[in-house]
């Protein structure tokens, strides 16, 4: 059995009186693709914010590779191999497409300011590597991010390509665990289909373990090894897609009970 990469033990978080996550247990094995589903406000994005260190849990522990990451700064967690995309795109819009990806290499590169000023051989070598890495990560998306100039500013990209660029940027941080927050949101059917294939390729070719939040059930069905359903901050179901999709509690969370549902 593969080893556990990420483990959440009894994680709770409340904003004032609002309990966003309650006693959540979750584990992700290395090489797995796990989908998190649930209605709006279920706590999915909060879960991501907890794992990446933007919030700190009130209770419980989060382990990455067996070591607790609670209390670490987000950039420290990123250096330990967790990278993410955002549901509401957060690109560096006024920087070029390529620079967006290059910027994310900060965590695993070392040249300081003075070495940059002097352009030492080591710094130049590192810079070439960052450059190559960025081109490689952008090339991963085929012609979607190749067809036009990498030197265009990121704001000139279409919505779908911005989503792709966010994934490229996240992978440039060289993560072992990739958190994708609604990668198919706002995409047309063709692009959604492409994203499903892409997530599969990310695991096959990139070797990433992937935790993904997604509302599109076709995507969830197509990619997931395992599905976790949240509602009101509580895990209500876990298992294969078919198990979760037919779980009465999940159906209830999405559609309401028979008594309240009309028709």
């Amino acid at each position, binding site marked *: 059995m593969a080893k556990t990469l990420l483990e959440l033990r009894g994680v709770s978080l409340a904003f004032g009186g609002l309990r966003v996550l309650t006693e959540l247990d979750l584990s992700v094995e290395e090489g797995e693709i796990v989908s998190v589903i649930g209605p709006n406000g279920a706590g999915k994005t909060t879960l991501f914010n907890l794992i990446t260190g*933007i919030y700190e849990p009130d209770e419980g522990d989060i382990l990455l590779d067996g070591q607790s990451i609670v209390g670490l700064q987000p950039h420290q967690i990123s*250096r330990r191999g967790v990278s993410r995309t955002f549901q509401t795109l957060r690109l560096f819009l*006024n920087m070029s497409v390529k620079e967006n990806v290059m910027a994310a290499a*900060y965590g*695993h590169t070392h040249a300081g300011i003075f070495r*940059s000023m002097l352009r030492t051989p080591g710094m130049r070598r590192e810079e070439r590597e960052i450059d190559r890495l960025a081109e490689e990560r952008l090339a991963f998306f085929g012609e979607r991010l190749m067809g*036009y*100039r990498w030197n265009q500013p990121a704001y000139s*990209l279409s919505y779908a390509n911005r989503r792709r660029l966010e994934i490229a940027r996240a992978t440039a941080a060289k993560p072992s665990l990739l958190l994708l927050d609604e990668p198919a949101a706002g995409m047309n059917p063709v692009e959604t289909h492409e994203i499903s294939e892409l997530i599969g390729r990310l695991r096959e070719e990139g070797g990433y373990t992937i935790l993904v939040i997604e509302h599109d059930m076709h995507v969830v069905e197509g990619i997931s090894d395992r599905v976790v359903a949240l509602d009101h901050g509580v895990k209500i179901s876990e298992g294969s897609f078919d198990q979760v999709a037919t779980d009465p509690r999940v159906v209830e969370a999405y559609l309401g009970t028979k008594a309240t549902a009309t028709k």
Partner: protein
Amino acid sequence: MTDPTPHSPDDVPADGPAVGRDEWVARHDERRLARGRLLGPLEERLRRVPWWAWLVLFIALLALVPAVSGSGYVRRVAFDTVLYMLLALGLNVVVGWGGLLDLGYVAFYGFGAYAYAVLDSDKFGVHLPTLVAIPVVVALGAILGLLLGLPSRRLTGDYLAIVTLFFLQLFQTVMTNGDKAFGHNLTGGPNGILRVDPFHAFGHSLVVQHQGVFAVSYYYVAIAIFAVVFVALWLVNRSRTGRAWRSLREDPLAAEAMGMPVSWLKLMSFSFGAAVAALTGTAFAALNASVFPLTFYFTLLIIVYTMVILGGSGSQPGVVLGALIVSPVLEMLREPAKGRILFYVVLVGGALVAFRVSRRLGVIVAATVAFGFAAHAIANAVDHSWVAGEHAGGVSGALAHWVVVPAQLARWLTPVSYVGLIGMALVLTLVYGRLRVALLVPTLYLAAFVWENVMLTNPEPARYIILGLLLIVLMILRPNGLLGERRVEII
């Protein structure tokens, strides 16, 4: 009929509509080359010129200034302009790249000047060699920047602005009252520190004046410092740190999530800006041989910010250009004759930009000219003293028959014309079409009247009013500054 939605990107015919591909952007180069047989390729050529070639050309042009003009005044203005360029470059690190609104910036400039004055003057009898003093001052400036950054690193936007503004005030207060600090005279108080050493190394001193004329040596030293700072910052900007700074400006949360230590980067940005400002301060103190607290205050802060905003915050060539425009313009406005030329050039240029070369522009110009001569003739016919002030004000030529300059300006006329002009300008923004053109003519004339009668007699406030107007007009025409990249907010 078939389903119009392609099921895979491979189904799309090569020449058909490409879903998800940014067609417009993809053809950017084609469009640029199609712009004309001459202009397109020329632009392409110019774009390929490496950055350092532009820099060498620019510095060569700067270095030629003393050769073109032997006047000490011109050289002095050129020297001040180079110092302003340095200040703008330093502020660009904090504001343009780091995205941090630092309103205490000139305090670091003042700190550099004071630190140099303390290390190289009779004040405490310390006379460090310049090659030792400058690195020490720069290091101290960087440390001070770090210290200010420490408590402010979690602040952004307005809150950071307030804290840094407070720091500037604190610096000012300490320097002004430093003559009674615990019973010691540390800073000379309002009288500052006098008899500061010039730059000196290896037994030689850089003279400020040679036979009564501003010597070029300091100018060349300033250019050398400028070149070093420009290149250093350029290289930092194209490195991992520069990219991280700009990421921090764009989105601190995303930058942090992508492995960039945001707090540390902010501190570094503060510290670097402060170091550049402190370095500039040493040259300022050495040249003037004295430092006074009030030099480093809001007026200077506003001027440096104007340069950065006008030139294009975030762009190094932009902020240099901003300094290159603002500094000489402020100098020109000191002298009525030069200020007058500037004023009319801006007036005509503004009309040209607003209306292009069109029949409407012709009508407006003709009407304004006619309006002026008519008003002048009428005023002359009624009472000659109404137009007798021309020679006192230095107006000559055709202008003297156009603009009315009374020998004795009635007391009430100053505020009335001033407020009237502002009122007319406001009304102009509310009306459209022919009425606007009709109202523009008397407004332009009134502007000339106010300029000749009110503003030229008070050049000091007029300088800043003109600077403000320049900024407003340019911000409307180019919201991101002259050389600034197009900016978008998060959408």
